């Protein structure tokens, strides 16, 4: 039925457009002189006058209808049965199956009644939606047609409608973000009712296993995030140690030294590297880099864990090189040629010019490229899972196994969960801290970029 509804929407919108445009252009035949807007704008105005109410009505009526259908069907059953959520779900499934003619076995009279109710209310509500929608659409079309006149500023009105639609779309994005933050915040607060924030933020031990029965071994978990902070920091640090210079120098080469031809080859290749799925990089880290490092370490008589922060950090560094290099390349290219000319004309060589003029001018942009790359590294999970392990060691030794925020969140939430244990809730608290951290990074990056913009506008 909703397919029919939207077909009708399309037909009405197109009709409204053509009627609107025709009315305006038909009247125009004698000369455009006194018409404010072009016919196409009258058409667009009419079309959006039809489209928006029909869409909005559907968005409001469809969920209302769905809940009415359900409650009508459920009213056929014993209220005591319906009160239990699991029971209610099972009853609804059975009733739907019966209504669709796919129920195996003999239905009870209540079930039969519910199925009948489903069938009838569905038909009624969808016709209702269809009729209300069509009436609204036709009404809107009529209203739009009466407004079409030489003096009507259809272009400005359409502009306003566009603005409102764009605003609504960005509001959706913002509201989603706010919703996510609040749901995580809410769960985090629940977590803090079980574990004190002080223990959480400053505890030196992380082992989230809480026993189900009080007499089990290790019955209480430890929720100190310091080992995770250390692990995240260590891996990110190693990654940046590799990605920052490599990416920056690659960018300088591409922007300043490479011929256009070489640049057109290297840049896409680097961007392919950015597109490699992290799972693939993860097994590259675990199966190739980690054994290599262990081999080297043993030659020097070092004990290297088979899963090490170093292996994960190196591969993660390789993953984020393209972020650094591609963004830095863009900002270096954005440095005006006039500055380079000014420097050359003073007798500076190419490398002096890059060092003293180009890089300082591009510095804010480069810093923000680094920040973005860093928040990528902090948020990365797969490589760490596969190459650095799960052990929450509190160490800064890159040869040991460590673990990070994202890995712990993933580990905690994989598999069957009790949704109110401290263990499960701790994932939300971790997520919240992580969110806060990347927020700060992005904020710094944003501020730096703003300063950069001011300089050249």
């Amino acid at each position: 039925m909703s397919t029919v509804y939207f077909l009708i929407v399309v037909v009405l919108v197109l009709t409204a457009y053509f009627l609107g445009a025709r009315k305006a252009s038909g009247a125009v035949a004698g000369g455009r002189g006194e018409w404010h807007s072009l016919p196409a704008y009258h058409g667009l105005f009419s079309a959006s006058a039809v489209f928006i109410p029909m869409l909005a009505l559907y968005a409001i009526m469809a969920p209302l209808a769905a809940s009415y259908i359900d409650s009508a069907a459920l009213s056929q059953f014993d209220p005591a049965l319906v009160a239990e959520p699991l029971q209610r779900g099972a009853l609804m499934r059975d009733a739907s199956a019966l209504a669709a003619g796919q129920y195996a076995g003999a239905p009870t009279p209540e079930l039969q009644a519910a199925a009948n109710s489903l069938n009838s209310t569905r038909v009624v509500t969808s016709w209702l939606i269809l009729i209300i929608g069509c009436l609204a659409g036709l009404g809107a079309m009529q209203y739009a047609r009466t407004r079409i006149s030489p003096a009507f500023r259809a272009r400005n009105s359409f502009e306003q409608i566009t603005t409102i639609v764009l605003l609504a779309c960005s509001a959706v994005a913002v509201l989603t973000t706010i919703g996510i933050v609040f749901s995580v915040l809410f769960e985090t607060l629940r977590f803090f009712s079980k574990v004190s924030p002080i223990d959480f933020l400053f505890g030196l031990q992380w082992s989230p296993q809480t026993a189900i029965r009080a007499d089990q071994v290790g019955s209480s978990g430890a929720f100190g995030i310091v080992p995770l902070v250390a692990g995240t920091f260590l891996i990110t640090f190693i990654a940046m140690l590799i990605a920052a210079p490599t990416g920056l120098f690659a960018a300088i080469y591409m922007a300043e030294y490479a011929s256009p031809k070489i640049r057109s080859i290297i840049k896409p290749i680097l961007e392919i590297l950015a597109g490699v799925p992290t799972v693939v990089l993860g097994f590259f880290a675990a199966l190739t880099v980690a054994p290599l490092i262990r081999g080297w370490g043993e030659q020097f008589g070092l004990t290297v864990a088979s899963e090490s922060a170093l292996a994960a950090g190196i591969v993660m560094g390789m993953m984020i090189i393209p972020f650094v290099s591609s963004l830095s390349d863009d900002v270096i290219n954005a440095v005006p040629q006039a500055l380079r000319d000014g420097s050359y004309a003073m007798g500076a060589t190419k490398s002096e010019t890059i060092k003293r003029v180009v890089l300082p001018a591009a510095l804010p942009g480069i810093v923000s490229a680094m920040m973005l790359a860093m928040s990528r590294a902090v948020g990365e999970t797969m490589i760490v899972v596969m190459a650095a392990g799960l052990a929450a060691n509190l160490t800064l030794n890159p040869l040991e196994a460590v673990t990070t925020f994202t890995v712990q969140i993933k580990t905690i939430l994989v598999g069957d969960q009790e949704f109110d244990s401290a263990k499960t809730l701790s994932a939300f608290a971790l997520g919240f801290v992580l969110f806060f951290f990347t927020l700060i990074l992005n904020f710094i990056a944003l501020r730096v970029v703003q300063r950069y913009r001011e300089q050249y506008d």
Partner: protein
Amino acid sequence: MDASTRTPTLSHNPRILAERETKIVAHDVNVYYGEKHAIKDLSIDIPDRAVSAFIGPSGCGKSTFLRSINRMNDTIPSCRVTGDILVDGKNIYDRDLDVVQLRARVGMVFQKPNPFPKSIFENVAYGPRIHGIAKSKADLEEIVVSSLKKASLFDEVKDRLDHSGTSLSGGQQQRLCIARAIAVNPEIILMDEPCSALDPIASARIEELIDEIRQNYCIIIVTHSMQQAARVSQLTAFFHLGDLVEFGDTDEMFTTPKDKRTQDYITGRFG
């Protein structure tokens, strides 16, 4: 075009050349951008301690020739220069000549002010630092201050030498660029339409400044304003489609041009 129209109509040897030493001698210079022939068999003598103006319709090669005097054309891959340009009798296209040193002797000011996004002080100190001119920190400060004074900018910025050069007004920025060029003690200063991005008042200040410093430098200024050429220069060269059509004393050029094309341009018939 036959050879006779290519040879510049010398206005019986400009007077100014008889009074001053010759600083730059160009002989049969040709400049190409790939296939495009931008300067054709150009020969000119440019006097020291005077202002020479290059005028002509846009695209006639004024900037191109100017940029071949400090070899800025080297930075354009497709650009090729043939012929000889001599500064103080020494060919600047010689293999053993170091462009770094050449550009320290030949300063340049661009059409659009292009201060570096550094402090005012650092902008002026840029050249001295690169060329190791200052012996000490005090020395450097001395150079910066005297350069700013010569560019008649010091009084306006003396309290905020640590502010960004880009925070100045357009005219101040251009004077900062002149100070930056002066700071390395050049002998020649090339200016490519230095006032075209400025308002009339800022332009007038630059013109005044050029007039003040001309005793000490060989200045070449490209300009699209004939009034400006008439006001600031002692010698004017008129370019047309890659040819140097005519050059001579400015006052004569504007009163009694020898060539029909010069006359048309000056009287505003094209350009």
